């Protein structure tokens, strides 16, 4: 495996303009590596430092301390080399020239990414086709839906044929269908051998798309692992969920050896979390034996990990 | 009374918006430098024409144009309101939009009068004005109030087409400056242009300003100020109708966006 992104002790402070207090530490001692061909997620709440990290890796910001290299080039001293090889996609509506057409936007950025004219003549239409915008290529972006704008953003990020693509909250504000389509596109991009670094606070997205996920909170990386492994960090045992769990059964499970917790949610599902081998099986037998058929089992999700690690901060928007 | 409350609250918003844009230093060295230079630029025409009378005429005219400029600046300011996405929230509110916009931009009146007075005080000694000018601030207040109504009407037009808000404003302002008696008396223009100027803001107020600076308060000056306020009120009423019409048609054709 080749490392395409690596950071060592990366730190970024911001000084507030009219504040008398000290600097704000947005990133602190970030050590991160991303391998070639990987889709790497950075998951954290708002203000955790995700966008700051993306901006450093894409040369928009200079770190206060530490180093970062993309494809072997330093993001501070070898800026031109980095910029030629990366693509950047922001989420939301900003960054497009809405009074221009989709094609005009891409032609412009192709030139800024030094794509030869002959190559751009084929690449731009191909990208528009790929993101499903070829029929709207000559319409003004201001007429596009949010999902269409995001797809155009993705096309813009790919126009320079980057080796590494940075996506900063790319599906924010998209409806579920649009998000799903976007994720499919990201999967296709990885299949071409590109490396993708994706920031998000959407757990489902990170779990569905990423090979590895780094959890970030208050400027620090808490953990980096595959989503499934992260889940096991909380509890490697399967849970059992029962709908409309009778109170007496609930008390029985609470008193049962090898059961860590029994929690009931407002939607009527109760989760029985074992913390010993074989207990899930025993719980299931009791539930089925009681004639209850609304039952499901599963492993801890990334959301469970996230909530467990972030504690009360949860998923603030 | 409740419309007044709305206006007062909106005025506070307007003041805070201005404070966010300008510090005292940036207002002094940015805007005031420009405004002073603008007055000087046109007053200096007298040097080319070899006429001290023109220097003073254009000086007074362009000083008075300052409060008119600010009064009319409600137009683009309101177009900005639409761009903020707050317009649909205002339309949905149970009051006419007019008190809100009137209040938000009322700080422009104070700004225009203050600037005009300050520029006059600075330049009058150098440009050869001799006389008392105690009545200038209230006279400029009347000029500003007179322009306010037209500014609100322009605001209504700007709301329908926010992208050309600045164009509407600048066309109106420079048109009035060109024919309103700011740099030359309106008598140099053809009759129909003079008639047009009579029904636009600034013209009568400026005549009143010239009168009070020349002779102090007089019946002639009072008449001109009366005409200025009457025309200002007429434009104000037209603006009221225009705002109501916009709100209705905007609701009918769905041009009021929730997401811009």
């Amino acid at each position, binding site marked *: 495996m080749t490392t395409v992104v690596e950071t060592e002790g990366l730190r970024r402070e*911001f*000084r507030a*303009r009219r504040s008398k207090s000290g600097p704000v530490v947005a990133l602190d001692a970030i050590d991160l590596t991303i391998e070639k061909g990987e889709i790497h997620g950075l998951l954290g709440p708002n203000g955790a430092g995700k966008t*700051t990290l993306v*901006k450093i890796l*894409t*040369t*928009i*910001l*200079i770190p206060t301390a530490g180093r970062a290299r993309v494809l072997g080039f330093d993001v501070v001293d070898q800026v*031109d080399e980095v*910029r030629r090889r990366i693509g*950047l996609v922001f989420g*939301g509506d*900003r*960054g497009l*020239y*809405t*009074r*221009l057409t989709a094609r*005009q936007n891409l*032609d*412009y*950025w192709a030139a*800024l990414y*030094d794509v030869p*004219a002959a190559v751009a003549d084929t690449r731009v239409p191909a990208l528009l086709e790929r993101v499903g915008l070829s029929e709207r290529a000559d319409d003004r972006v201001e007429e596009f839906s949010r999902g269409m704008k995001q797809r155009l953003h993705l096309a*813009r990020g790919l126009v*320079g044929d980057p080796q590494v693509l940075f996506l900063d909250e790319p599906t924010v504000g998209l409806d579920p269908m649009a998000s799903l389509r976007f994720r499919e596109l990201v999967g296709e991009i990885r299949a071409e051998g590109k490396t993708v670094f994706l920031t998000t606070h959407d757990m489902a997205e990170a779990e569905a798309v990423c090979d590895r996920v780094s959890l970030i909170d208050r400027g620090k990386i808490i953990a980096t692992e595959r989503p499934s492994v992260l889940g096991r960090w909380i509890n490697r045992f399967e849970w059992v969920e029962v709908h409309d769990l009778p109170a007496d059964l609930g008390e029985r499970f609470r008193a049962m050896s090898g059961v860590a917790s029994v929690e009931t949610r407002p939607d009527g599902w109760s989760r029985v979390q074992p913390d010993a081998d074989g207990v899930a099986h025993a719980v299931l037998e009791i539930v089925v034996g009681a004639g209850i058929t609304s039952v499901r089992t599963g492993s801890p999700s990334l959301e469970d990990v996230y909530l467990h690690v972030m504690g009360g901060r949860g998923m603030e928007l | 009374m409740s419309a007044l409350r709305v206006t007062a609250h909106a005025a506070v918003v307007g003041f805070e918006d201005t404070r966010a844009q*300008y*510090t005292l230093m*940036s207002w002094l060295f*940015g*805007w005031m*430098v*420009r*405004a002073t*230079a*603008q007055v*000087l*630029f046109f007053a*200096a*025409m007298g040097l*080319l*024409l070899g*006429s001290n009378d*023109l220097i003073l005429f254009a000086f007074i005219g362009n000083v008075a144009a300052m409060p008119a400029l600010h009064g009319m600046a409600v137009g683009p300011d309101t177009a900005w309101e639409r761009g903020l996405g707050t317009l649909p929230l205002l339309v949905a509110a149970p009051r006419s939009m007019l008190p809100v916009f009137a209040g938000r931009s009322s700080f422009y009146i104070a700004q225009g009068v203050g600037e005009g007075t300050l520029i006059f005080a600075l330049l009058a000694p150098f440009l050869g004005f001799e006389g008392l000018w105690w009545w200038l601030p209230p006279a400029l207040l009347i000029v500003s109030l007179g322009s306010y109504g037209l500014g609100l009407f322009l605001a209504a037009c700007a709301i329908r087409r926010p992208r050309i808000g*600045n*164009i509407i404003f*600048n*066309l109106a302002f*420079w*048109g009035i*400056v*060109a*024919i309103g008696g700011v*740099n*030359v008396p309106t008598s*140099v*223009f053809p009759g129909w242009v003079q008639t047009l100027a009579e029904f636009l803001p600034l013209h009568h107020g400026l005549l009143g300003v010239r009168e009070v600076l020349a002779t102090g308060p007089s019946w002639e000056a009072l008449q001109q100020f009366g005409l200025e306020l009457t025309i200002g009120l007429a434009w104000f009423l037209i603006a009221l109708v225009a705002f109501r019409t916009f709100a209705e048609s905007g609701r009918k054709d769905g041009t009021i966006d929730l997401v811009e």
Partner: protein
Amino acid sequence: MRAALAAFRMQMSLVFRTPNFWMVQFITPAQTILFLSVIDAFGRPDLLAHAIIAPTLITIWYTAVWTGGSVVRNDRWNGALELHAAAPAPYGVVVPARVAAVMSMALLAVPLALGTAALTYGVDIDIQHPWLLLVVLVLVVIGTTGFAAILTSMTILSRAAGTIQNSASYPFLLLGGVFVPLALLPAWIRPLGRLVFLSWGSDLVRDAVAEPVVEGVPARLAVLTALGLAGFVVAHRLIRIVMRRVRVTGEITTA
């Protein structure tokens, strides 16, 4: 070079679709009437060149200060500034090219002023040296473009970009001798005016229009060219310095 051309083309497309970029041109007819009414009131047809050139130069200058000066500010507002910061093409090349596109529309002021004069006062100006006039106007536009590029780069760091644009308007028009030649202004102001390249342009434009013989053309053109090109060079360097500073302080992110 390709990036500069693409940036020019892109901005031209934007200009055609953005009414605010046309705002300044709408002022030209009204200001032409303003100046013509003054010389008419004083019976000075010999000053016709002044009355038509002044609104033309005001439009060119205003286009530079307001619309040219807004190129970077607009990029900042719509989030494209950060994308430019991450792109290989230097922003210091992209910005002057885009400002040049805006400025090329400023030359519309010439037919607007001439047309207004013909329609309202029935005047037809006899241009003594049309080719010299064209060269000077192009140089004035180029020089103003450089100045606008400097101005727009300053808006990256400032929240009060409008303030900067305000203070760059009428003070420069006054010092630039746009209507009243510098020679007629108080003596102490003249050295200041000579630092503003617009004053060189104003005098040369008036002479090209009205003077049978224009003195010192090569030297004056050289000064105009040098000052104009200097503006471009300064703008390019300034944008590089500003973008570097923005990367260090994070001002794009927080402003």
